[in-house]
Every structure is written in C-alpha cells, then in structure tokens.
C-alpha cells in the first residue's frame, strides 16, 4: 500500500471508529442479509444435489399405481406414506428381466421410536451389486434373513444409543402405533451415508411378513402368517421394488410397460428426474426467499448511504480542515467510498458467520427429518459472489455521500472567519 493510500485508509478507519455504533449496526444488518442470501442459495443447491443425485444407489422405484413422487418420497426418502402394495409376483417378474442388475424388495409400514422399519434382503448391502453408494456395515454384521435381527442406520443408532446386541420392538405404523410382540436383536450398525438410509431400521423382509398383526393380501385374500409355516409367494406383497439397471434403455422400456401401457404399477424413473421435478415445482419458493434476502441486503446497503450521508453534515468541518491541509476533493471522496466499502466488507465477513450458523441449524433439522446432511464447509459460488457483490454494492452506496464530501468548500465550511 502506498503512503497516500495508507493515509486515506487511516482517515477512513478513524472515521469508522468514531462512528462505531452506526458502523456496527449497519455491518450487522448487512451480515444478516448476506448470510441469509448465501444460506438460501447454498442450502438450495446442496439439497437439490442431495435429493436428486446422491440420495440412492438405485435408478428406479416400482410401486403400486399412483404418484411417482409419492413412491419416491416413501421408498427412497421415507417421508411419505406408501401408495399401496405390489404382489410378490411383480417383484419376481421384474427381477428376472434381462438388464435388471438389482431388484430389491421393500416392505414398510412399521417404525421403531419414530424411525421407519424397512423389510428387505441382504442384497441391499451388497456394494458389488449396487456400487459405491451402498450402505456399508460399520459395526457388527448384516442380518440373517431367517432370524429376527436388525441393522440400524447410523443416525438411528446415534439418536437411540442402541448398539449391537440391543433389543428393539417395532411398532405398527410409520409414526406411532401399538408395539409388536416380536423382539429384534441389533446385529449391525451402518456407516453414515448422509442419506435417508441413515434413518432406517433394516430387518429381513420375511420378518415384516411375519410381524404380528400384519396381513398379506398378495393373493387377493387376507393371509396371516403362522409360526413355522412357510409363506406362499402367492400371498406375499411388497411396498416397492428398488431397481438398478445395467443401461438406461431398460428404464425407457419399463417406463413404457408400466406407466404407459400398464395399469397396476407405477415406475418412478429416473429417481433423480422425479425429485428434480419436485424441486422445479418448489423453485418459486427458493426464488422468493432469495429475493427477500436480496432485498434485505439492499436495505442494509441503503443504511450505509443513510448513515454516511447523515454523518456528512457533522463531518463537513473535518473534511474542510483536511482540504485546507492539502487533501484533494477526489481523495476525500475516496475516503468516503472506502468507508462504505469497509462497512460492507465487515458485513460480508460477518455474513460468513451468519451463513455458518444457519447451515449448522439447517443441517441438524434436515438430517433429523430426512437423513440428508448439509456440509457448511462445502464450496458454493454464492460464497464468493455474494460477498463480492455486497462489497461492490457498499462501495457504490458510498458514491452519494462521497459526492457530498466532494462538494465541501473550505472557505464556507471551515469557519469562523475573521
């Protein structure tokens, strides 16, 4: 920094110190606004990525006839109720289709302490079959499909403090309900995936069929499974089948087969598209939030103008003294713009703290509600653009009071005369 630049910065710094209260209040309002803008944009982007790309190792969900979105929300995100069940035969048929790399049956409808219990099979945890997004066992082992054993998602284990060896009692329904008689023993805990899988309790699907009070209607009539009696495939039913394909071409074929030509089942494919459509539909909410936050930022910026412009009146004499000492009009204007930019910079820096705070709170809420984890440290363009825009906006706001400083006349504003 040159000596002259330093002297201008010294002037700006001292002025900010002299007006510490208004500087702090203005910087605080800018920090809140910029933090909010960054948080809205970053949460929006991270949520979209998490819900559309990173949430599941599967390509499609097959379920009862109904809404694709409901199907995805229920079976992938565990947020909705099941639209109905599919007969076991449909699962077997789709599993046998060439090009289907994996078809995993899902049976839902119970919970343990508010966390959904999912009946499935051990292939759900087969990384070779499903790829890198497959949930991995962190402690213990995968359940034995013939026993009453359970595997807990990482979030469930953390929240309930259940460990390998703990006994659990599923309850009927996805939220509350009467407790089933069956005991399940926890035999494994999954490593965190930062996806909805972390919020599930996994048991063998056979266990779900045999849970007391459960009725199977796959054969058209009600069937209650009896102890030591093999359940005929004809009566079995599943809530959904999660599918992974060898190629997208099969997705097109199945889409045509189930959604366009069929009447009994719905294929949600690709899962990312279904969720992207949801985000597109909710996009207006993001835009409104961003607009409100941006307006808050503008109001904050306007307060820079107000505080500096008001201060100009009492600073006219000080500025006239500086002019008399040899300061040029442009230098004084530069000082005012520097002050405005500095206030905005303080606001932008404070904005990071606000951003981090909002992200931490949002992360906990989103994780508790969906299992998806936001990363406050993750980079996003808004983290650079918003502060830069704010500083530029702040400097621009300094132009009006700077113009007032420019117009200070030594002879008029210095006084008194003799």
């Amino acid at each position: 920094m040159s000596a002259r630049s330093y002297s201008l910065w010294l002037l700006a710094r001292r002025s900010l110190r002299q007006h510490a209260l208004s500087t702090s209040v203005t910087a605080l309002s800018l920090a809140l606004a910029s933090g909010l803008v960054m948080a809205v944009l970053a949460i929006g982007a991270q949520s979209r990525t998490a819900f559309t790309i990173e949430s599941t190792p599967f390509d499609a969900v097959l379920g009862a006839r109904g809404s694709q979105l409901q199907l995805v929300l229920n079976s992938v995100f565990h947020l909705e109720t099941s639209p109905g069940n599919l007969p076991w035969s449909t699962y077997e048929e789709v599993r046998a289709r060439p090009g289907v790399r994996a078809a995993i049956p899902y049976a839902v409808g119970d919970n343990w302490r508010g966390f959904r219990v999912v009946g499935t099979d051990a292939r759900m945890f087969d990384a070779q079959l499903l790829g890198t997004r497959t949930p991995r066992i962190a402690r213990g082992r995968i359940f034995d499909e013939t026993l009453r054993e359970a595997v807990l998602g990482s979030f469930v284990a953390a929240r309930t403090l259940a460990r390998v060896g703990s006994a659990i009692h599923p309850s009927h329904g996805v939220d509350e309900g009467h407790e089933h008689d069956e005991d399940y023993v926890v035999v494994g805990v999954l490593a965190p995936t930062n996806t909805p899988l972390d919020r599930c309790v996994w048991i063998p699907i056979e266990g779900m069929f045999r849970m007391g009070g459960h009725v199977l209607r796959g054969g058209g009539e009600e069937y209650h499974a009896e102890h030591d009696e093999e359940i005929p495939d004809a009566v079995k039913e599943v809530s959904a089948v999660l599918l992974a394909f060898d190629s997208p071409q099969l997705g097109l074929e199945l889409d045509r087969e189930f959604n366009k030509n069929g009447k009994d089942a719905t294929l949600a494919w690709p899962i990312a598209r279904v969720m992207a459509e949801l985000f597109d539909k909710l996009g207006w909410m993001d835009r409104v939030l961003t607009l409100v936050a941006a307006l808050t930022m503008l109001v904050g910026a306007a307060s820079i103008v107000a505080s500096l412009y008001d201060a100009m009146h009492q600073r006219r004499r000080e500025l006239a003294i500086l002019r008399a000492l040899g300061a040029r009009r442009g230098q004084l204007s530069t000082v005012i713009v520097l002050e405005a930019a500095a206030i905005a910079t303080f606001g932008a820096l404070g904005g990071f703290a606000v951003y981090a705070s909002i992200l931490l709170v949002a992360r906990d809420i989103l994780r508790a509600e969906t299992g998806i984890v936001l990363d406050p440290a993750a980079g996003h363009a808004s983290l650079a653009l918003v502060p830069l825009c704010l500083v530029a906006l702040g400097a621009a706001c300094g132009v009006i009071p700077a113009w007032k400083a420019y117009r200070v006349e030594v002879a008029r504003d210095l006084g008194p005369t003799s």
Partner: protein
Amino acid sequence: MTRLVLELADVRKGYAAPDGARIEVLDVPELALAPGEQVALRGPSGTGKTTLLHVIAGIVRPDAGSVRVAGEDVARLDEAARDAWRARHVGYVFQTFNLLHGFSALENVALASMFAGPAKVGRARELLERVGLLGRLDYLPHKLSIGQQQRVAVARALVNAPQLVLADEPTGNLDRDNANAALALLRDTCRENDAALLVVSHDERVVERFERVLDLATLNRAAALGAKA
C-alpha cells in the same frame, strides 16, 4: 536580490450577495514578504483577513491579479494543483486550531505531511518534542489543554517545512499567558525553520510584537471602501 516568498499584485476577490449584487471583499494592489520575514496584518473583523489568507493559501482563487508564493503563481493553478501545492509549501494555523478530533496529536501533525508526500512521522515527533509535547503524542485533542492544542497546531503547520506560514487569529481563543506563549512559539519555530510568517489579528497585544505591521484597512482598498468581508 533576494527572491520574495510572497508577492501579491492587484489581487481582487468578490462574491455575489443573495440579492445578486456584487460585493467586493478584497482589492489588494500589492503585498510582499521576504524569506524568514515575520509580518502582522492588523484589521478589525469583516475587513477580509480570512479571505486574504485563503487567497494566499490557494484555498480560493482570486478574481483578478497574481499571487506568487515561492515563485509559483497560485492563481493560475487549477484546484487540484493548488491543493497539492498548498500541502507542500504553506503551513496554516487556524483561529480555532482545527485539530482533527479522532486523531492523536502525532497523527494530526503527521497527517498534514501525508498530503504532501510520504508521511513524515519522524519530523512530526521531532516538532512535537520541540513544542514540549513528547509525552502527549498519543493524546486525542480533547485530552489536551487549549495551550497544548495550539502547540499541536503550530507543529502541524510546520511539518512540511513550508516557506510560508499563515496564522489566522492564532491567539484568539487563548488567555493572555497562553497567547504570549503561543505567539512566541509560533515565531520561534518559524524562525528556526526559516519560514516567513504572516499573522492576521485584530488583537493589538499580538500585533505590537511584530517589527512590520500592515493595516488591512489601508492595504485592502475594498475594506477601505467599507465593503463587508
């Protein structure tokens, strides 16, 4: 022949009154100061003393005439050039000292040098030591007595080693003892720095201490005609 520090020739300055009439404030046919010379300019309020100092310092441009200071015709320079020139060549002691309130004594003095080039912090410290304020370098103006503020103002006027120091009623706010001390300080430090000194004052106790005294009522023909400054 010694080159003059200050030469005014046929300087005139006027303002437009609110009713549109032209008011002549200054009409000075000539005024000259030699290097190191100390001159008092006497005149009652309203005779254009401050306007004359502003014209000499290049704060305002005269309507006519030439104002040569240290060989430069200030009246011909544009405003930015006059500002830069003033910072380098003229020291100004204001009637009310006009120290900057948010700045320490040392910063008040050093800041004046920043507009003339690189900050002369060492010289600012030296001058403050010379005026007995070495122990008050970090004091803000409101923590200093009136006499101490005056000394800071004198040090500030001299920090750029100007060839000309202008003082506008430099003892106006001081009691008798402080006024004497301040004037002696101003004169001594100007002498030590070989700077010419032009003091305007309506206080006879100040004026009578100078060997050369000019009467503004006579020097300024506009004042002689009774115009209001």
